[in-house]
């Protein structure tokens, strides 16, 4: 492999702001006490990072690796396995719509269209121009009897229909 094939990113002008400062380390220590290994705190630690800054960058992964005594590559391997960790910045509000079979037969596709329109995100996975919304389709949210379930950030909303979408979207600032 050529050394020049993957030039490293130019160093940023701003210094990296560590996520695990005093208060966060305290939270992490509480988590560590639940498990017999440091590695087991990885998923909770990644949740802490995502909560703090909205997504998980490569540099964040390296920091988590250092804190837990793992390698950055290992941490990246775990991050990329799970769909809920964002590896790129997303809109201020992140919308997940279930479109698996039971919801599909109850009209989930129309809900997706309504959400793309009302939020201005237009395209699945894209962020609206005002930086407010990102909408994605997900596989089974585990609320099939309440089709179509939509997860806006941490708010789990049941039985969403296209006509309920504009009002739902208006609730978020």
């Amino acid at each position, binding site marked *: 492999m050529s050394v020049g094939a993957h030039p490293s990113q130019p160093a940023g002008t701003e210094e990296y702001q560590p996520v695990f400062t005093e208060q966060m380390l305290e939270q992490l220590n509480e988590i560590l006490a*639940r498990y017999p290994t440091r590695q087991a705190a990885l998923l909770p630690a990644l949740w802490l990072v995502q909560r703090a800054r909205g997504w998980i960058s490569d540099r964040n992964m390296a920091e988590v690796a250092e804190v837990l005594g793992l390698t950055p590559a290992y941490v990246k391997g775990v991050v990329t396995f799970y*769909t809920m960790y964002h590896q790129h910045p997303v809109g201020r509000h992140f919308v997940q719509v279930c479109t698996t079979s039971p919801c599909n037969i109850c009209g989930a596709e129309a809900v997706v269209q309504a959400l793309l329109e009302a939020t201005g995100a237009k395209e699945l996975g894209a962020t609206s121009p005002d930086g407010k919304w990102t909408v994605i389709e997900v596989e089974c949210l585990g609320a099939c009897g309440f089709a179509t379930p939509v997860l806006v950030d941490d708010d789990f909303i049941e039985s969403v229909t296209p006509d309920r979408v504009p009002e739902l979207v208006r609730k978020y600032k």
Partner: protein
Amino acid sequence: MGFPHKPHPKETVLLSRYFGEADARNYKGWVKRGGYAALEQARAMEPARVVDIVKDSGLRGRGGAGFPTGLKWSFMPKEKKKPHYLCVNADESEPGTFKDREIMRWTPHALLEGTAIAAHAIQAEVAYIYIRGEFTEPLAIMDKALTDARSAGVFGKLKIHLHRGAGAYICGEETALMSSIEGKRGNPRIKPPFPAAAGVFGMPTTINNVETLAAVPHILTKGAVWYKGLSLSSPKSTGTKLFSVCGHVQQPGNYEVTLGFPLKDLVYELCGGMRPGRTLKACIPGGSSVPILDRAETESCLLDYEGVVERGSMLGSGGVIVFDDSTDMVYQIMRLARFYAHESCAQCTQCREGTAWTTKILERILAGQGKTADLDLLLDLSENMTGKTICVLSDSCAAPVVSGIKKFRSEFEDYIAGRRKPVMVA
């Protein structure tokens, strides 16, 4: 009750009795309803005695496999040489299934009590409740319930922790769940060793589903004989079961019935039947991983572990997906295959390639580009995806495909022959 609908007289409410009652979520409200009495009772017994009672009750795992719960507990080492762990599987992600979610939302203490009893029975000092990442509300409710019960001192030396998943269907597979708790990618592991010998952190471990554990306190207080008496057909299927019904029925929701209950009555009476002017076309009785039943099979099926097998499917998790005559079965089977392709952990070739190719072939059939040989190709692929991998995700993808082609072949052939308008697949 048929939450969120009014209870139906044909239901036997045990686990769902307090669904919808906010007060039952609180520690005090739960104790007022007789909560934690079973735990006290269990604690006064030798662990082996608790295992025997659950064995005698005939309780079988409600997560999908239907393995006898007491027997599973009895596999744990009798003489304790290492730490023992209990893992609670609250990763409910099987399309069609949404019962554990309701148990955690409405009766979090029922799960905590069952967890504490199971931990006593298998002599575990730590229990992890693995809740899927998307279940934000159940997670918050469980967290509060755990904090309250813990401060009331009900768990003694037992430590119970919640562990949040992060989006991966496969983590509901027991060995993948353990990998995930350990901070790894959620890859299933080859068995043996079985969890009772080397489970989470390499220690003896038992994994139980939420609904299974929620049933345990009832067995302790009312007795194994009483629980065993809850059976309408096969003596091998005892107790009540929550059935999550979704799809084309008038009243989707969770319904609790005694095992052996007719599927026909569940769909047509409890759920209010089909939408006006529609008829039932197909039904998946146990979550998306089990073979599809046609109308005649659905209408003659008894809901217990043996009854559903007799009709060529499985009871699984009790997630009932109902399709009416407006359904494009080819499209829905493609959606299910796509689900498995998305969720494959990609360790095993048969699954990684098989789920992806199954989806691609179904998509091309829908797009009007299918070939006559494609159906045989799908069946051949499915054959190679069944019983050949570390876990059963691959088999689960094959189940709806094989049963779908068998029972709804003409719909596939219509697309291939150009008799049906092609569907653009997004």
